[in-house]
């Protein structure tokens, strides 16, 4: 019993430590012509209010699919919203023909691939996963 409880506690601790240590980086293509974004700009882009990047191109926003810890952290830190609220927000816009939610992909590796290969793409990954293929334009700290 002790071991089980201890194991669970340890798991919870390490989970919360991991979450704390990982800042989320908003990334764009290195040729996008975008150097930096403000938090307001990131909000406007990911909530579909602003449809173009500062460079003028139509933004291709890339999001993680489904219940996902990184996705949940991203929206919690960006707008302090639960994923259910984000889905509810998009349901209104999508079913009234006002726009589609960001493209949903399964893994961070896919986000990096799309951003690397598309000049107008914008996504987010844990900062530790960012490599030289993409450019960081905003950091969402814990």
């Amino acid at each position, binding site marked *: 019993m002790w071991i089980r409880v201890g194991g669970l506690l340890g798991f919870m601790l390490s989970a919360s430590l991991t979450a704390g240590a990982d800042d989320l980086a908003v990334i764009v293509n290195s040729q996008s012509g975008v150097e930096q974004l*403000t938090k*307001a*700009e990131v*909000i*406007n882009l990911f909530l579909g*209010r*602003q*449809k*173009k990047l500062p460079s*003028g*191109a*139509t*933004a*291709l926003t890339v999001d993680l*699919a*489904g*219940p996902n810890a990184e996705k949940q952290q991203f929206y919690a830190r960006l*707008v*302090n*919203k*639960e*994923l*259910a*609220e984000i*889905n*509810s*927000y*998009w*349901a*209104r816009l*999508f*079913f*009234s*023909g006002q726009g*589609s*939610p960001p*493209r*949903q*992909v399964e893994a961070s590796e896919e986000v990096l691939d799309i951003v690397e290969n598309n000049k107008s793409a914008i996504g987010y990954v844990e900062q530790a996963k960012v490599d030289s293929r993409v450019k960081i334009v905003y950091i969402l700290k814990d």
Partner: protein
Amino acid sequence: MDRFSTRFFISILIGFWFPSVVLAEFSLGNETLFLNGFGTLGGPYNFDDRAGFIRDISQPKGARGDGVDWSIDSRLGLQGTWKPREDFESTLQLVSKYRYDGSYRPEITWAFLKYAISPNVQIRAGRLGADLYLQADSRDIGYAYLWVRPPVDYFGRLFASYLDGVDFVAARELGEGMLRGKLYAGQARETLPGDGGSEYSLDGTTVMGGHLEYQHLHWLVRISYGAIRLGDEDPLEPLLSALQSTGIPQASALAQEMSLAEKRFNFFGAGIAYDEGPLQSQLMVSRLSSESLTYPSSTAGYLSVGYRIGQWTPYLVYSRIKSEHPQRTTGLPDISPFDAINAGVSQALLAGQADQETFSLGARYDFARNVDFKLQLDWIHSRDNPSLLWIDPESDWDGRSAVLSATLDFIF
């Protein structure tokens, strides 16, 4: 167990069963064709059996005692979207819900082509949701809002949910926020139920308008204007002809004032929403000015505040509508055959009035992905009997009703 509690028990059971259903992902990959949908299952139980509670004036019968009325809020929508290019999109949406004729025959609620002239400038043509108020074009998507249904005092009097026409939206960055303007014009196509099984077609009705809104992080401010001109059908036709044919100037003048054919209505609306983390609040007011005594001018508004606590979001809503109450007489003596005309006129004038307030308390429970459960209690006080917003109230109804509603909303 009586019928009410049996049905209520079943809806709770469905609520527990739902998490195990594998729901299709509400997401759009890089495909060009998408099929999605939304729905609501549930409804109100009106503790009062003396007046029929409706969601809006498109519904021919209301909830009055006798168990949960599944017709009022339940609906199912399917949407197909074809997006071959980033600047072009085509959407078709079908919704099955309780209609003016008492059926659930699916209707095409959206069918449009959209072209983006530039990323923030778009034009759409085809069948479009009527966007007279904030959220008026998404009233069927229960999952998109906190309440069981949009506040009846505010949205219940709207008589068109879609238009065949065009709209134009342009947005630009202003400070940290976005400034957005929309213009639209189109023809209404729906049919409304009238007294005693009669129907009123909106064919030939034109609607045009627009709004300007500014959205800054947590704030949204919108002002809107809409102008409606009804078609040439008049639901009161036999009565108006009878008034005219008397040859009495006062009666003829009244027939003209009561007529709906080709009359104009102007909508002015203003709203502000503040949505910050767990807090969601909205304050909306609107004024409808009318040229017809049969659907008199009115002012309506609501205040809604919700606060998320974990998966639960309790909310409070206060809403209010007050119409003008035209007091007119025909000038005809109350003897046969004129007494029937006098009675018809007085009934028609009363049917369009509304003076009502509602206090609602509810909670939305986001218990599973893309599914929510809602429970809401409304205390309604109608100072009018009859009223635009109630079906066949009994003459001794005191205008006070409590309505308890439970719904399950989903998207896929």
